[in-house]
Structure formats: structure tokens, C-alpha cells
């Protein structure tokens, strides 16, 4: 039944009964009501103007700032989403001038935490921009989740009702999801989680992060390695039964896998043998469970395997007490043109990608010899040296690879050093042979500049990241990509293979890091927490942790299985260009635009987290072990050799 029907019936009833006065009163009231509602809507429309937003927000702000200390930080968190949505509402309603003044008035409050977002939002100048800018669009489409304790939630509601600030209420209802938890307010230290107000809504991340990640090491390869090693050094490492038992318990608790303890025992012995007595907390590798490779991996030639084993035997133990040696390759006379460097696994080859589209490779082992022979034997030999170099004009110390038609942004050596990949702004990837000094393949698939490229841990497969917001997996023998990983909301800036080849991680300008399953091409983890573009990634050799470095100099350690940040590493003052784990995973090295190489102790944190996991606290900090300042060379890339020698490279830049 309609309202009108009811009215008709009502009036008919009143007429029939002869309630004249009642009927008149009702009619009067009805007229008043209708006109009143019209006036009301008119009023509200005019009121919905900028002043309402401005007043409402400033009141809410002063209320939040003067609220109880215990709940203040929770309530303050609400301000930022309200602020940006007020601003965007004002823009959407066409009040450009007022939106601007509103933004400028309250901008300062949030600059500390959200400076980069604010800089972007500042550019919104007309309603159409809201549609166009991806950040604004995603912000408006999604809701922000904010955790509040029950009492703060009630406080907020009471305030909004008491002061009748419906505009604020509307904004809050529209854009914020409150997760009300009973009990005490969340401590300030957890703010970092809430802070990342990324476009992608948290629900998705949460949902995605439910999936299982099998972060263990590869069964096959590792097993073979450890068998060979344990055979060769059976004599050593008899004792330490207690340790082994301990480890076994821990491991079985984590891995939940059966029937590997015997293998495990062997492995522990091996570690003890390698460690040459220094077998303190360095056996993290042994905790890793085993998984099967999902890709068909290339078969490793025996001589390569042999050399790897050789390296393993000669490996220097690196830990918080025994720091690695660092060999620095400085590029001089680059004339500001060096975009990227990469170092082969044994440190003998160094490649540099330049903005003049060229790629140059230096053989450092040969370079040293050449200098020596030249200086010792004089001019008579120089002709021969030129011949040896095999380049067109003799006195060049490097091999020049030309083929790209745009700045080269990234390069990567395959584990054997036989092949070299380069990616360029011309949206292609090229494969070069360092033996033949020639271009072998040109992979075309991306539509925009390819920012990063990386060979898989076993070669053959490689992954690329591009401005077109995708990461792609390729194999050397196909010119089409095997998988396309799409999902990032902005450029994919860096990629990193997982140690077991089953996953890749990508870091993006949308300030998130994602983990993708190589086989299915699905996103299995979203790591939210960075406050600026992610520039570098590294995976721990045991496959459990990942480190990511951003534009501000923050490095974050992530636990892949939980998808949580273990702890942020603060210390760099500028872009973290590169990260590398030592071979045991005990030390993390970071290179930055602030011209330092820093070493971080990773074991302590891992240990504590293992203990703390039960308690659920995550307040521990990783320790800075040492900082090595260079004279004036930003550090572009770092590479731990298999023998745990750290190679670093960078271009000497004039101090400015």
C-alpha cells in the first residue's frame, strides 16, 4: 500500500466519522511538513557547501586533539581519511577554491606521515581529475579500515551525535570501516600497519594473505648438495647431538612435515662442518622445509655444480661477529650516464647500463692482469692485448653491447655468468652472450619501459617489471612471456625471485610489495607498510624472509608466511638502491644513495621473532652492524658471492 492510499483511506475515514477538525489539522500539518521538507533540503544543499566541511573538520580535529591521552592516537587516526575525503568531496562538488584553502589549512597535520600522498592529491584541481588519478579513484572507491577500541568508538559516535555534525558523520560512514575491538586501545607502535592508506582495500590484502606460501627450499637441489658435502666431510661433526635435537624440535614444529629428520641430521652436520667450529646461530638454513619445484628447472651441468660445491666448501662464515669483506667497483667518468650496474655471482664480471642505450661489461679478473702485463712488459705487448680484447678499437677495457634504443634501466647476469639480460626504456629485453659478445634474443612484450629484470636462481627463467604495471615471467627459449602478473596499481619497479623458484616478489610505486605464484600467476601476498615507492628487494636464502627498501631509506623485513613486517630498519637517509643477503642469511647488506653500505644483523631478529611468535609481539628491532661510507659514490648494486665476499658497485659522482 502506498502512502497516498493510506492518506486517502485516512481522509475518507475521517470524513465518514465527521472528524472535521482533525482532518483540517492533519491537512495543515501536511502542508507545513511538505514545505518544510523542501526548505530543509534547500537549506541542507546550501549548507553542504564548503563551510560545513571546514567547520566540521576543524571541530572534529580540535576535539580529537583534546581527547583523552589514552585514546587520542586512535582518534587521530580517523582524521586523515576524513581529511582527504572532505577534500575530495569538496572537489567533487566543484568548490575548488574552498577545497584548496581547506587542504592548505589542515595539510600540515598529516605531512609527517603522508607527505607523498598529499603531494599527489594536491594536484587534484577539478572533478575530472578525481576520475583520472588512480590514487584518488581508488581512495574514493574503497573504504579504509581503522581499528578502534570500543571506548574510542563510542566517544567518536557520541561526539558526532552531540554536535550534530552530520557532514562528518556522512564522510565517516561513507569511507571508513571501523573494526571495533573490545579492550584496551591499540598501542601506538602498531600505527605503521594502519598508516598505509593504499588504494587497494585492506580486505583484499587480508584475503590474499590467507593463502599458503610454501617458502621452503627446493628438495632436489639442496639435497644433492648436502649429500655430496656430507659425504666428503663425514669425518667431522659427530657431537652436537643436543643441538640437533633442539633444532629438530623447532623445525618440526614449524614445518610440520614428517620423515625428514634424518635428512635434517645430515644437514646439521654439514653446517657444522662448513662453519669450521663457528656454529652459533648461523644454521638458519637448516630450518627450512623442503618443497618441490613447480617449474621444470634446467639441469645443471656437472662442472657448474662442482664449482658451486667448491665455493660452498671455501665459504667464509659471515655473522654479526665475523663481518664480510667488501670489494667496491667504482665507475669513474660516467658523465652522469650510468643507470644501473650488476655483478655476476662470482664477482668477476661487472655490467653497467647507460642512458646512451649502451651496455658495457668489464671482466675484472682480466682487467687486473692486463694492467699488470702492460705495466711490466711495456709497449711490445700492447698490440697483443688489443687483440685479446677483441674489440674494434683497441684500448677499450670493456665489451660494448649495443642494441637498445633507449636508456638501459637494468641488467642481470645468469648464475653461471654466461648470459646477460638487459632491459631498456625502449620496452624490450635483450639477451646477450658474454662468451660470444653478441646479442642473442630480443624479447618484446612490454608496452612501456622495462624497469627491472632478473634471472632466476637457476638461470633459464627470468622476470621483468615494467611501467605498464605488470611483471612478466619469461624463459630464454621463448620470445613470448610465460606469465603476466597484473595487479599492481602503479609501476612495478623491482622484482626478485624466491630462492625456490616458485614465487617472485615485486615492488611497486603503489608502495606495496606483492608475492606471486609463478605457476598460477596469482598474487599470494600483499605486503603493505612502505610509505614511498619500493626500489629494492631481497630474499633470504632460507626463503622465509624478504627485505624491501624504499625511496625514503626505510628497509622492511617481511615474514613471507604471515605476511607481516618483522621490523623496519631505519638508518639510511636516502633511496635504498639495493639489498643483498649473505649466503647463510645472517647478514643483510644495503646500499643507498646516501653513499653508504650498511650491514644489518638479521639473525637476532629472526631468533627473537621465533620466540616471540607465540606471544604475538613484534616490537623488536634489527640491529645495524656497521656502516661503510664511500668517498662520494652512491651504491647501485650489491652481490654476495657464493664464498660470501660482498661486491658493491656504484658510479663516482661529484659531491653536490
Amino acid at each position, binding site marked *: 500500500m502506498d502512502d497516498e492510499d493510506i492518506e486517502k483511506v485516512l481522509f475518507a475515514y475521517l470524513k465518514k466519522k465527521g472528524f472535521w477538525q482533525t482532518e483540517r489539522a492533519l491537512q495543515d500539518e501536511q502542508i507545513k511538513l511538505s514545505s518544510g521538507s523542501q526548505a530543509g533540503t534547500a537549506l541542507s544543499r546550501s549548507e553542504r557547501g564548503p563551510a560545513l566541511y571546514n567547520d566540521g573538520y576543524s571541530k572534529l580535529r580540535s576535539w580529537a586533539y583534546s581527547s583523552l591521552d589514552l585514546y587520542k592516537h586512535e582518534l587521530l587516526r580517523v582524521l586523515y581519511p576524513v581529511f582527504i575525503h572532505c577534500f575530495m568531496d569538496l572537489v567533487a562538488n566543484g568548490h*575548488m*577554491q574552498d577545497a*584548496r584553502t581547506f587542504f592548505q589549512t589542515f595539510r600540515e597535520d598529516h605531512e609527517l606521515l603522508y607527505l607523498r600522498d598529499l603531494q*599527489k592529491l*594536491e*594536484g*587534484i*584541481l*577539478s572533478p575530472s*581529475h578525481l576520475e583520472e588519478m588512480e590514487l584518488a579513484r581508488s581512495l574514493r572507491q574503497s573504504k579504509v579500515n581503522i581499528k578502534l577500541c570500543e571506548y574510542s568508538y563510542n566517544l567518536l559516535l557520541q561526539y558526532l551525535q552531540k554536535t550534530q555534525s552530520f557532514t562528518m558523520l556522512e564522510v565517516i560512514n561513507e569511507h571508513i570501516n571501523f573494526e571495533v575491538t573490545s579492550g584496551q586501545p591499540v598501542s601506538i607502535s602498531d600505527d605503521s600497519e594502519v598508516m598505509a592508506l593504499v588504494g587497494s582495500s585492506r580486505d583484499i590484502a587480508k584475503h590474499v594473505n590467507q593463502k599458503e606460501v610454501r617458502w621452503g627450499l627446493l628438495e632436489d637441489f639442496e639435497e644433492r648438495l648436502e649429500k655430496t658435502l656430507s659425504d666428503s666431510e663425514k669425518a667431522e661433526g659427530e657431537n652436537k647431538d643436543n643441538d640437533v635435537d633442539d633444532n629438530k624440535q623447532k623445525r618440526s614444529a614449524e614445518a610440520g612435515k614428517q620423515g625428514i629428520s634424518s635428512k635434517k641430521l645430515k644437514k646439521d652436520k654439514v653446517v657444522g662442518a662448513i662453519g669450521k667450529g663457528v656454529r652459533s646461530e648461523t644454521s638458519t638454513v637448516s630450518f627450512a622445509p623442503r618443497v618441490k619445484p613447480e617449474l621444470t628447472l634446467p639441469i645443471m651441468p656437472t662442472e657448474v655444480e662442482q664449482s658451486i660445491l667448491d665455493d660452498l666448501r671455501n665459504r667464509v662464515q659471515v655473522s654479526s661477529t665475523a*663481518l*664480510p*669483506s*667488501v*670489494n*667496491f*667497483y*667504482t*665507475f*669513474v*667518468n660516467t*658523465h*652522469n*650516464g*650510468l*643507470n*644501473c650496474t650488476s655483478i655476476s655471482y662470482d664477482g668477476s664480471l*661487472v655490467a*653497467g647500463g*647507460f*642512458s646512451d642505450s649502451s651496455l658495457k661489461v*668489464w671482466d*675484472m679478473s682480466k*682487467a*687486473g692482469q692486463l694492467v699488470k702485463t702492460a705495466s711490466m712488459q711495456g709497449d711490445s705487448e700492447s698490440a697483443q692485448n688489443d687483440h685479446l680484447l677483441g674489440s674494434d678499437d683497441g684500448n*677499450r677495457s*670493456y665489451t660494448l653491447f649495443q642494441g637498445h634504443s633507449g*636508456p638501459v634501466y*637494468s641488467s642481470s647476469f645468469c648464475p653461471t655468468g654466461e648470459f646477460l639480460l638487459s632491459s631498456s*626504456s625502449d620496452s624490450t629485453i635483450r639477451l646477450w652472450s658474454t662468451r660470444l659478445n653478441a646479442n642473442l634474443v630480443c624479447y618484446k612484450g612490454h608496452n*612501456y*619501459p622495462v624497469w627491472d629484470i632478473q634471472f632466476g636462481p637457476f638461470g633459464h627463467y627470468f622476470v621483468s617489471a615494467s*611501467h605498464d604495471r605488470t611483471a612478466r615471467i619469461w624463459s630464454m627459449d621463448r620470445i613470448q612471456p610465460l606469465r603476466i602478473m597484473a595487479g599492481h596499481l602503479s609501476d612495478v*619497479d623491482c622484482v626478485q625471485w624466491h630462492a625456490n623458484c616458485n614465487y617472485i616478489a615485486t615492488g611497486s*610505486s603503489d608502495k606495496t610489495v606483492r608475492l606471486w605464484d609463478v605457476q598460477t600467476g596469482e598474487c599470494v601476498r600483499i605486503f603493505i607498510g612502505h610509505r614511498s*615507492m619500493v626500489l629494492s628487494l631481497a630474499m633470504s636464502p632460507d626463503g622465509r624472509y624478504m627485505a624491501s627498501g624504499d625511496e625514503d631509506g626505510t628497509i622492511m623485513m617481511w615474514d613471507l608466511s604471515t605476511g607481516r613486517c618483522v621490523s623496519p630498519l631505519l638508518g639510511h637517509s*636516502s*633511496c635504498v638502491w639495493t639489498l643483498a643477503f649473505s649466503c647463510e642469511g645472517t647478514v643483510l647488506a644495503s646500499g643507498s*644513495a646516501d*653513499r653508504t653500505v650498511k650491514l644489518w644483523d638479521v639473525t637476532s631478529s629472526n631468533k627473537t621473532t621465533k620466540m616471540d611468535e607465540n606471544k604475538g609481539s613484534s616490537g623488536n628491532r634489527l640491529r645495524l652492524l*656497521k656502516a*661503510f*661510507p*664511500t*668517498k*662520494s659514490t652512491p651504491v*647501485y648494486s650489491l652481490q654476495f658471492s657464493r664464498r660470501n665476499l660482498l661486491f*658493491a*658497485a656504484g658510479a663516482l659522482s661529484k659531491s*653536490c
Partner: protein
Amino acid sequence: MSIVPKETIEVIAQSIGMTNISSDVALTLAPDVEYRLREIMQEAIKCMRHSKRTVLTADDVDSALSLRNVEPLYGFATGDPLRFKRAVGHKDLFYIDDKDIDFKDVIEAPLPKTPLDTTVVSHWLAIEGVQPAIPENAPIDVISAPQENKKLEHGKDDGLPVDIRLPVKHVLSRELQLYFDKITELITNKSEPVLFKEALASLSSDSGIHPLVPYFSYFIADEVARSLSDLPLLFALMRVAQSLLRNPHIHIEPYLHQLMPSMITCIVAKRLGNRLADNHWELRDFSANLVASVCKRYGHVYHNLQSRLTKTLLHAFLDPSKALTQHYGAIRGLSALGPSVVRLLVLPNLETYLQLLEPEMLLEKQKNEMKRKEAWHVFGALMCAAGTCLYDRLKMFPRLLSLPSQSIWKHKGKIATTLPNSKRKSPPSNNHCPQQPSLKKLVDASIPITQVASNMQPTTADGFSSIASVDPAMRPSTSSGGLSNENIPGGNRRETSNSRAPKTHSVLAQAWKQDLDAGSLLASLFELFGEGIFLFIQPVEMNVFL
């Protein structure tokens, strides 16, 4: 409101030939232009990051434009960051300083040097976690670790006499050898002062030259011993020593024993330089200060360093058979070590020494012009030493100064005004008053101060009376100052000083005692030096007046 005002749009429109653009259009266009600009900048920053740079260049903007399929901007391509200049009269208006280049100049200019090709050099940033001190690495703040090691080693050596080490073969890298050769060449041929200055700067700041320290110290010792007659070379060597001592990254202590003798030689050698015109005084002063700085820095490590040094210097000072130049050096050396050394070692011998010196300075007794000049130099140095010492004393008793010094000011002013007359005639007339000429010299040197002083003359009357009442020892000074015009008080003062001689001597001998009245010290010094000594109490004086 926004970065791009509508006026800008209008101006741009006009510049491309659209004169009749309506303000509405401009108003609508402005925000969109700004948005596009921001978009381009965002992309450009991405390109910059991926080129691993922290400074945005025109190339980045070009790449960003090409990402958006926009034609790049031509004419801005440079490898360096653009240099913006501020427009005169505007606070926030900048422009690129773009100079007109004449084609003729370009064509006629010689071919530019080919830029050096990119190369890769390798070095150790760290060895097992420790940064080696090599030139490639950034200077390390303090070398603490090596010192500890050395101490440990020393301890070992003492404990185990059996542990005899084979001589270690010291390998110098080729670069260091070149560096050493270049520096020594610069020192010895002195033809390029600019380059030499650079070399000194490098020596005083480079962290990587530690391996060269023994070579340098040997070189300095050797060259000083060999070429005492070459004053510029000696000077250069002392400067090198100074730079090495200044370098915070090198560990020079073990080589001090080699450096010290050569530096002391440069202070107290009988002859430095082979020409009369050589200004060896300056070298002596320089080396004296250098040695004093060494004492200050390493005195706590080597306890006998200073005592040995002072012994050497005192020996030179007190030996009448030594040349005056040597005396001069010794005095400078001692006074550089600080006022307390002067008080302890120089003042007690001052009077006796001056008696010896006096005949040397007089025209009648010392006919050799050279010798007399030297004597005056020595006298100046002595007075300077005594004066600084006095100044130091007086600093501790500002109260004491307040009255007497007022008067001193005044008659100093008078001296300044009267001296020009007496300058000519004083040497012959003041036979027994050797102080006057030097006094004049010093006063002349401090003309600005005397000008200040002359402004204060109105207070003269008070000063006179107060001094008379407070300090009898001051009286001669006031009278002589006031009447120096006529040179009458000369004999008069001589008498006083003679009569006071025993007392003066005892005062000076006791000068090192802390509790000695600075006033009486001042008095006795005045006996010996005349008014010249008052120059040293001026700074305090100023404080009093302010």
C-alpha cells in the same frame, strides 16, 4: 590558489599567437595545465629513480614526456643539473641563465678534449668488517683501532724479549710512490706555489697517506740537515711537517723523534739561509709555534718531550757564546710554549741577560750594523715573551688593573703623539736608556690603538692622582710618559732602577710563584723594558673601559 594562475595561460596563449583567449577559457585551462604538469613530474621522478639519481634532469622530463607520447622539449639537454638564477626584484621567479653563443667562437675554438672513457676501478671498501685507510675510502673519523693494536704490540714486545721480529718488507703501492715523488719534487723546486698549496692541503687531510709518513719524516730530517742555507726550502719543509701534524688520519707519533730535531734546528740554528736579506726570523717563529703545537698535542703521551725541548732551548738561551740568532730562536721557542714556561725559565734570567744584551744594541759599542739589528730582534722577542707572560698574569687579576692601567693608557697616548719629534734625536741623547727606540717601534706599530687612547685623554687628571696614591712603583712611568718630550727623566729613572735593582731581580726570580703580586711583576718588567711593556696590558684595559 594554484601554481599556475590564469595569467600564465593568457601569456602563453599570446606567445603562441592566440590573442583573443577569454578569461573563462584561461580559468578552466589553468587547473588542467597544473594537473598535467604534476603528472609529467611524477613520471619524470620515476625515470630519475630508475636512473639511480637523486637530482632531476631535463632528460628525465624528456623521458616522461615520451612515456606520454608527447614530443620532448628540445634545447634543454645537458648532462648537468640546470642552473637557475633568481630574477632581480622577484622573490620566487627563476630563470635559466642561457648565454648567447657566437657561432664564430664555436667554430674557431680548438677541439675540446675528448671526454675520458668510463672505467671501473676496484678497491676494498672493507676487509672483514674494517675499512682500510686507503685514499679510495672516505676518511675515517679517528684512528682508534690501530692505536690500540700498537699498544698491544708494544706490551707484547716488552714482555717477550725473545720475540725478535724480522724486518718487515714495506711495500708501497705504485700510486703512493708517485704521490711521494710528486710531493717531494714540489717541495724541492718550489716553482709552483699554487700546486704546493694543494699538496699541503692534501697532506693535511688525506687518510690514505699513512704508509708514507716514515718516508716523509725521513725526507724532512734529511733535507733540513742538508740544506740549512736554503731558506725557502726549509720553510717548505716546515710547512709539510705542519700539514702532516695536522692530518687527523695519520699516526705520526712514532716518527716525532725524527721530526723534532729538524724542527728545533729550524728554531735555534746559527745560520739559516745564505743571504743577508733572508727573513730567517719568520722561519724561526713558524717552527717555534710548530714545536709548541707538537708539545701541546703529544705532551701527555711523551712526558719528557717538553722537558727535553725546554732544556735544549734554555741551553741555547743561556749560553753567552752562542750567536744572537740562536738566542732569538730559543726565546721564541720558549715563549711559544706558553707564559708559564716564560715565567719559570726566562724571567729569572731576564735581568742578567739584558745586561749582556745592552752593549750589543748600542750604536757606540756595537759597530756592526747586522749585529745590532739582531740584538734588537732579540730584545723585541724578550719583551714580547715577558709581555705575554705579564698579560697572562694580569688576566688573573683584573681588579688590580683597573686603576694603574688607566694611567698607562693615558701616557701611552702621549707617547704616541710626542714620539715623532724625539725619534730622530733619541738614539744619540739616550745613551743609557736603550729602551726608547724599540719602544717607539712598537708604538708605531700600534697606531690604531693609540688613536683610541688619545680620545681618552680628558680623564688624565684623575689617572695621575690615583696612581700616585695607589702604586708608588708606577710613578716613574707616569712621569716619564708625561715628560718624554724633553728626555729629562732619563737619568732620573736610571737612578731609580739602579736603586731598585736587587729588588727587581728577586721579583723576577720569584715570578713563577703563583701568588706573586702581578703588580710588582709589572713594575719590575717596566724597569727593564720601559713603557713598551704596557702594550701588553691593553686588551684587558679595554675590557675595563667597556
